[in-house]
Every structure is written in C-alpha cells, then in structure tokens.
C-alpha cells in the first residue's frame, strides 16, 4: 500500500486516473489498527482492481479535513480524482470488499 502525505496526495490521488482506495488512520486509533491487517490482505488480493493507499492523519490533519474526513477509521474511494464512495465508523472488511468490487 502506498503511504500518502500532504506532499504526494495531489499527484497520487487527485490527479491520478482510475479507482483509488484510501485508508485514513492514525496511531491513536485502535479500531484503525485492528482493521489494517485485513485491508492489507484485501489490497494484495485485489491488486489489479485499484490503487491502494493509506493516509496517517497525524501530520496530515488539514488534508484529511479537506477531504471531509473528521473521524477514524474512514475509507474513501476515488475515481479519477473524485470521491465516489465512503465508509466510516464501524467498518467491516466485508463491506470494504463489496464496495471495491461494486466500483471496480
């Protein structure tokens, strides 16, 4: 998974083509860390379907808020730079996979 920051977000997400999944997380968010291993598995399993990225909101808070993310964990899907779907609060990996397959 590609680690996003405020430096590369524009290039890798907003200006990028195709389907992109971004997992917003932070070190203090236990539910995020609980979800993360299965997100990584999902990224490997469906590597051909989308570009998979993660964004540590620590240090990138303004960026997260510019994407209207104000709670963790949140997973956003972008299609050609636009947000096309979002999952937040109690996220199950099954929901993420279903959304991915729907959009891919």
């Amino acid at each position, binding site marked *: 998974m590609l680690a996003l920051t405020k430096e590369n977000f524009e290039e890798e997400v907003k200006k990028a083509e195709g389907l992109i999944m971004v997992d917003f997380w932070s070190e203090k*968010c236990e*539910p995020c*860390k609980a979800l993360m291993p299965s997100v990584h598995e999902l990224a490997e399993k469906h590597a051909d379907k989308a570009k998979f990225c993660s964004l540590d909101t620590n240090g990138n808070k303004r960026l997260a*808020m510019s994407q209207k993310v*104000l709670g963790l964990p949140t997973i956003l899907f972008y299609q050609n730079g636009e947000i096309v779907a979002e999952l937040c609060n*109690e996220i199950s990996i099954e929901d993420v996979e279903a959304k991915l397959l729907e959009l891919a």
Partner: protein
Amino acid sequence: MAEVYDIIIVGGGPGGLAAGIYGSRARLKTAILQKGKPGGQAARTEDLENYPGFSRGTTGPALMEAMEEHAKSFGTEIISEEIVGLDLEGKIKLIKSKSGHEYMSKTVILAPGAVPKSLEIKGEIPLRGKGVSYCATCDADFFEELDVVVVGNGDAAVEEAMYLTKFAETVTIIVRRNEGDLRCNKTSAERAFANPKIKWVWNSVLEEIKGNGLVDSVVIKNIKTGELSVLETNGVFFFVGTVPKTEILKGKVELNEQGYIITNDLMQTSVPGVYAAGDARVKYLRQVVTAASDGAIAAVAAERYLAEEEGLHKSS
C-alpha cells in the same frame, strides 16, 4: 480429528484476556478468538486512572497491550477470527468462524463486550465520521482549536470530555439533569467543574445535528421549557452507555431483556460448561477491573468443571 481446546474464550477485552491468563497458567489448552486487535473498549480509552496498581502512569491501550503479552506468556493462543455460529449444547462445544474454521472446546467463556450506544438523533448517522464520534482517542486531535459538544454525563462522558479539552478550544457537555447533578464519580465531576474549557448546558438534550458535509451546529432542547437553541460546533461526541454484542448468542444462552448475558456468581451461564465475563454480563459495575475479575472467576470455574467432568469420566 481436529484438536479440542479446554477453554475457548470469545472476545479479547480485559475479561477475555484475564480468563486467558488464568486458563493457560492452569496448563489448560486455552485460546482467545478475537476479531482484529485484542483490548476491547479499554483499548479505546486513553485515560485509565482507576485500575488498581497504576495511578496515573498508564493508558487503556498500554494496559491492554500488557494484558495481551501476559496471556501469551502463559501460552494463551490469540487467534484473529470473527465468530458466526455457536453450538454450545454438547459436551464438546463447536464455534464456527467467518473464515470457515470450526473450533472445538470442552468449555467456552463468552466475553464479547459491548459497543457504544447510538441515540439515532436526526443527523447523527449521516454525519458519522464527519464530526459525530464515539471514540475520543480516535478523533480528538482533529478538533484542535475547534469546539465540540459531549452528550452524556456518566464516568465515560465526563472523563472523555476532560481528555478532549487537551485538544479542543471548548467542550460543551449537554446534561439532561439539573445544574450540578452528574451521574459520574465525584473526583471526575470536581475536576470537570474546575476545567475552564468545559462549558455546561443543563436540563437539556440534543435534538438535531446539522451540517452540510461536516458538522457545523447542533440544536439543543431545554426539557424544562421546551425551548430550542442552536449552538455552533465542529464535533459531537456521544458517551451515552453501551449495548452488549450478544446478537449471536440469542437462543443459545439466557439473556435479559436488554440482551446482557445472565450468570451466577461463578460466571456460569444457563448452559453447562459455558461461562461469561465482562461488559456483556448482567452486572452492577462495568469497568476494566470488574471485567478482569469476571475473567479470573470464569476461568477457575471452567477449570473445576473440567476436573469434575474428567472425574466422572474416569469413574464411569
């Protein structure tokens, strides 16, 4: 034949981890099945000031990490699995996981825990992750220099509000009760009253959360006068109690009307060889220390049950 465990614990919060420590230390083959990372709700609570032995020196995540290590050190297996089915009636209990695995065990300790309750106020669900939160440690730092509202006045609400003042500019607590009357413990209440960043709205409830994309205001209703007022805010944190994660246990063990598992003093449920521990039980006080206590009792009761079953088996 697949291996049979002595104790399988469902849930890896403090109740489940304490049961794991006692079970594996008694040389019983013990596993904890837990979806994702162990620690339960305690791992989402930053300030933990009342767990005996740790005055101000530990946090929820740190204590849970230590409990996990402790359980593993005695040989408890911690397996990341989500449970989808249970067959508890037989001598050998069967536990089916989402991944398709079927576990077998002579005893089961149910420690599924609880999740924060949602009030389903207008605007609450669409604005989740957009300023509506149930987890201060997850989301507090988004609100640096911003204003937030806290709903609730129990221990969790007041303690988490204190934590939020480390980040937010103001924290407004909305309390249904009369001025000065809080449900939380006296120590936390005194500290909160002395905190200049905390503001109070008494005799009131939250009527609606508003915002286009992100939360921008809330509508507060005074329950004495019926008067509605609008307060601008960037976030709303709910700490209004919990609901037990016992959906899957319906019809398997006896639950009360609210869905909490009914046990006796030995943590036995209505099914022989099946015990319960932690917040999902019917109990007086839901804290890390009482969950750990439940886990210890449940594991020792399970150990005695196993010894008796073994005895019967030999004499027959």
